């Protein structure tokens, strides 16, 4: 057994030797009943408090939702909403009343919410040109913008379906006859404003075609400052989504009644979409959503139950 070869190997007790002999130092966690119970207990103890904290954050958010797409169509036109919305001659203004049920601390985010609107449709999502948005008309290859690419041979800036279908309802808010100031700046991600939409790119030939989709843009303002567009062009992931419209930077008190004067321009009637106006405060966790809190608590509780069950079973069937 004391062959020189073997000796030589033995001397080379380097990491590589241990590796080749598959005897690297290792920890071998084994799920003994003790560990199982500890893990479940630990999970319960972590998740229940986390869930409670999350729920609390969610409950601290005050949210007012008002669906206005039907109410804002005059009774007479409700049978044929599509022709109503497509008729430019009819004024589309409409007033809504929102009652504040709970004190809302500024800033209060104003969202419009669209349901059954497939902003994530592949044809829709692809129909844009990021390079054009950044470089303007200098960038010529806008084939990705089909079918809203050219207008009478002139390139459209911004091109593509997304921009073309820009949401164009507008809202003004009045509390006790005084107009509430709505801040419409900083509603888009900073990275988008700074790097994805050109500072020198101005809309060109936009909504000039035979088919007019949604909203128009200010021709004199560069795209990077047209935050409505930037928000709209961040396509939503799901067919029901909210987008930030602006922020009210005043606190709202309980029982305040807010009058919303809105222009009901956007056509969701063709495809049965809903339009909602949402006023919401936010917590450190964002908006109002109980799902996470509930999930945490359920997981935590079931972990605790499992821990107890395992303890009992372990006591009963001791190995």
């Amino acid at each position, binding site marked *: 057994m004391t*062959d020189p070869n073997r000796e030589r190997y033995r001397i080379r007790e380097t990491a590589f030797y241990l590796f*080749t*002999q*598959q*005897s*690297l130092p*290792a920890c*071998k*966690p*084994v*799920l*003994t*009943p003790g560990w*199982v119970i500890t893990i479940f207990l630990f999970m319960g103890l972590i*998740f229940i408090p986390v869930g409670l904290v*999350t729920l609390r954050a969610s409950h601290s958010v005050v949210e007012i939702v008002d669906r206005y797409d039907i109410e804002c169509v005059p009774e007479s036109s409700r049978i044929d909403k599509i022709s109503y919305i497509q008729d430019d001659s009819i004024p589309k203004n409409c007033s809504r009343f929102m009652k504040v049920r709970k004190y809302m601390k500024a*800033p209060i*985010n104003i*969202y419009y*919410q669209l349901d059954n609107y497939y902003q*994530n*449709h*592949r*044809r829709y999502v692809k129909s844009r040109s*990021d390079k054009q948005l*950044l470089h303007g008309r200098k960038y010529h290859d806008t084939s990705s913008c089909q*079918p*809203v690419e050219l207008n009478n041979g002139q390139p459209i800036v911004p091109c593509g*379906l997304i921009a*073309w*279908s820009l949401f164009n309802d507008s809202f003004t808010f009045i509390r006790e006859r005084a107009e509430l100031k709505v801040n419409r700046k900083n509603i888009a*991600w900073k*990275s988008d404003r700074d*790097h994805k939409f050109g500072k020198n790119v101005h809309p060109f030939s936009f909504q000039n075609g035979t088919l007019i*989709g*949604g909203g128009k843009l200010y021709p004199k303002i560069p795209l990077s400052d047209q935050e409505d567009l930037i928000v709209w062009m*961040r396509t*939503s*992931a799901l*067919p*029901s*989504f*909210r987008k*930030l419209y602006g922020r009210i930077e005043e606190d709202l008190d309980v029982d305040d009644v807010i009058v919303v004067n809105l222009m009901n321009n956007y*056509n969701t009637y*063709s*495809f049965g979409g809903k339009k909602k106006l949402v006023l*919401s405060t*936010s*917590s450190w*966790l964002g*908006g*109002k959503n109980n*799902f*996470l809190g509930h*999930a945490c608590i359920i*997981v935590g509780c079931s972990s605790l139950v499992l821990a107890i069950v*395992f303890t009992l*079973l*372990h006591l009963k069937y001791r190995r």
Partner: protein
Amino acid sequence: MAAATSRTRKGKIRWSKLYSFGCLRPSTSEEHPADRVGQLGFTRVIFCNEPYLHRKKPHKYPYNNISTTKYNVLTFLPRALFEQFRRVANFYFLLAAVFSLFSLAPFSRASLIVPLIFVVGISMIKEAIEDWHRFLQDLDVNNRTVKTRMSNGVFVDKPWKELRVGDVVKVNKDEYFPSDLLLLSSSYEDGVCYVETMNLDGETNLKIKRCLEASLCLNDDEEFSGFKATVRCEDPNPNLYTFVGTLEFENESYPLSPSQLLLRDSKLRNTDYIYGVVIFTGHDTKAVRNSTRSPSKRSRIERKMDHIIYILFSILVLVSLVSSIGSSLFLKHDMVDWWYLLLPDGSSLDDDDDLFFNPSKPVKSAVLQFIRALILYGYLIPISLYVSIEVVKVLQKMLIDKDIELYDDVTRKSVQARTSNLNEELGQVEMILSDKTGTLTSNQMEFRKCSIAGISYGGDITEVDLAASTRMNANLEPFEFSMDETNRATRSFELLDFSVSSFSAQNGNARLLKTEEPVIKGFNFRDDWLMNKNWIRGPNLSDITMFFRVMALCHTGIPIEDDNRKTDKLSYEAESPEEVSFLIASQEFGFQFFRRTQSLMVLKEFDPSSMEEVEREYKLLNLLEFSSSRKRMSVIVSNEDGRIFLLCKGADSIIFDRLADNGRTYEQATALHLSSYAEDGLRTLAFAYRELEAAEYERWNTTFTQAKATIGPEREELLEQASQMIEKDLILLGVVAVEDKLQKGVPECIDKLAQAGLKIWLLTGDKRETAVNIGFACSLLRQDMMQFHLSLSREAESNNEVKAMEEDILQQIQCSYKLLCEEGNNEAPYGLIIDGKALEIALRGNIKDEFLQLAVNCASVICCRVSPKQKALITRLVKQYTGRTTLAIGDGANDVGMIQEADIGVGISGMEGMQAVMASDFSLPQFRFLERLLIVHGHWCYQRISKMVLYFVYKNVAFGLTLFYYELYTSFSGEVLYNDWYMTMFNVMLTSLPVVALGVLEQDVSSDICLQFPALYQQGPRNVHFSWSRIIGWILNGVVTSLVIFLANIYILSPTALQRNGFVTDMNSLGAITYTCVIWTVNCQIAIITSHFTWIQHLSIWGSILLWYIFLLVYGALPPDLSGNAFQVLIGVIGPAPLYWMITMVVVVVSLLPYFVHITIQRSFYPMDDHVIQEMEKCLKKDDVRDNEMWVREQRNSQRSTSIGFSARVEAKVLSFSQQMQQKKLSIYRSVTNSPIYRSITRTPFS
């Protein structure tokens, strides 16, 4: 294969012919082969010494370079690519990549093509490296040099590859022949040379080649100046033992035979040099033509893996169908109303040709959507599975090769996994089919005992005794009783004494330590009376001398002069190792056989009367060959006085039948010795002689010569009859016993394998007695075993009627099976011993099933006298009939068929040639390494690969399905949630390393424990880790995980704000967050599976997760042109949101929870063997594990109730003893307990 074996046999016959005056004999073939020269198949013409004539047609033959590579520079790319895309999965990805060129794919081109190139590239690099190694080997061979005669008459070194047909070469001693040569002359005057053909047929003995007398004169460099000759011969063919041709030399034509042909890959031995002319070069040589690529084997897991891939493909097709149908329904009913899509309406023929969403052509759109979906959900198919498995297997192979425990100090060789794709199959073996000679035994015959003139000499112990005595030590008490009951008390005590001494000095080494004098290989005999020439003072002097003469003369061996020998001792080469051991023994006894020519044998004899060594010449008159039917061989020699003797050796039964009345003096005593030798497992031969009158001899010789001269099928019969006439009225001299040495550690290894639940069949070409002896020696058989002997009855055999033979065998099988069923198969084990002829019948159509049914139910099966072809046939039938994984292990050319046929072929890279090793999948230096290879490495690799494949399936299902769920929310429009490059990174970088680490380093239990609990091995054959329920379970786990990840994300994130600033999640951030959850989950999942964490696992798992964040950072930091929608997604969008990090935590925990609960329940309430052992190991770490009662108990329990192996033997003996025990007196018991052995046993309990 069959051809190879018949060749082997033929080769032997031809060789012996040399000694039996083969040149006097006419050829046995029906027509004169030389006549066929020039006809179809025999058209080759070689102009000796004029190689330049072979440069142009029609005599242009290839150069002598060979190439074993699969590819060359030009063909590599197309052929290797073709190999790669033959795999379904790879082909699928190729199609996907092609579609991506036509904007059909939902991803960018690069993200489809890059992983494909990566995966295929790695596989191809592996192929290229393997081929490169082959190329280097070839280069090495091709650049060997040989002395070649140049046109100026000088012999210079020339590389092999430049050799041409017609070149005259000079090959020196111990050099390999560069190509097939025609022997012209040698350093010996008679033009013979000795050739070692180990590389061709695995036979270690030397063969003699002989040149034509016409070319004898060409034995010097100068002689070749005017040499011109033409050879006409057969075309290149793979038959090693045939050669037909003529040599036209000096206007005469001489027929050529195989004995003038020197084959490539054989070696010149014992001859200083030879001259030869090149006949076949390179790929025309018989050796190259004869080499077959071993069939590529695939493991069970891999075959099952294909089915899994098919399942995944079906899932893929299913979800794609759902997608495309859903898409077209949406298109028809809803999408037309979605004005914001500006869908082309069928009426206007504008340039908008979005074929995917064309309401006027919904069917076409649906088809296109289907294709797109097939590509989109491609992540269900693990693209990197094959390549990962290949990488893992290569690493596993490396670890197996490097294992120091599998290194043999003696041969300085290690275990080699020659193919890496069967590693995991090692863990599923259920049946081992083993060769005997060279595998279990070391093919070393040792001269152990002899009985001369009725007196037995050489009392030493044999290996079998050793095995027996260690067993008896372990179980002393029944042995004591057997002492009581039988009256062989003295023998038993001898055993006992030996056992004690051997116990102090570990088994096999005992003898080495005991003997101070140098050990002579093949001679293990100690007897002062014979060794120190004391016998000359004793009686029966003439008989003893005669006995030694028989030993020294009656053989076919040749002496070999060793250059660096210090003594005047010679070593020998002969047809069988037995003969070698006889020659060595006779040399030790003072009868050195030291020269042989065609007709002369010269001995240095010790002359008892003068007490001097004298040289005596014996004229070899006739040699009557050994054959299996004759079971004897004789030589007829005349000594210097002109007296003619017939010296005969053969099987005892044959010899005893042929004794003269006055030759039976020692019969009784000898028979007694014979039986005792046989009991020791020794191989015995009886020696006899007879003096012939000159007249009688002459008379007989004419008949014999006549018989020899006969041409035709009756020749053999005539020869046999002639031999019968003279081999009679013999005078018995004595018997010799040689030992077939078991290899080191064989019984222990078999024992462990048996405990692991493996069945071991012994397939040997040896006769039944030897096979049974070895069966006993390595505990395949034991005394209390019921033995079924299947053989043809004599009458059935003599009638030679197939029908009768079949009936006979069938009846035997049915009888045995009935017995087996009646007894109930658990109580007493059964052994089945069947011989070749019976086997041939038993493996025929209708009896086959019944035979296999019986055989499979027996604890051990020994097949003796089987031909190599039968070995292969048995292997195939067992494989087919039982469906079990078989492993065939062997060392010689005769095992090649079996090795290639079995699921795993193992070659012993020991003494004999490379044939078996070349055909094998694994090569071991010794049989005993099989234990560790199977029980440790096999178990590990099986576990690793199955875990790995299952995890692969899991991770791809978990990820791929999230893509599908998202489609439900996008009206099946084919939009993808994730950035293309995230997805590309998934299989390539972010999840690949942990799997590889798992596949290479995972250990459920350490190697020590594997060996201590051989029963753990049963997990493999039962396939617990890769059963369908497991596979489905893992797929379901993937489904659950994907559901949890996806639903939790969309419900938590939508539609409300993500952060305090009120921003909401959009598609990009949802994608990044969901993807983060996927990465965390699949990596944590593998952390849960892993039970053995070294720093490598930690690094790869946690590193992969970290890598995702790094990737996201780096990718997001690129300008938006490059990063697209991932631009600054981590630092700008999701990173600052606490919700992101919370979601990650919650989703990971929840998605892993179902699996976690499952394993905790399984471990706590339905633990598997490895779980129990792991837990015990953990619990008992602090105490000394082995002493712990629980440990020992579990270890006992885990040892399957085996019926073979010596633990089983011990168990059985303990059982029988405890019954007897009650009847015996206490006094005996006390005497036993006081014995030193008993004490030593109680100190070291057998484990």
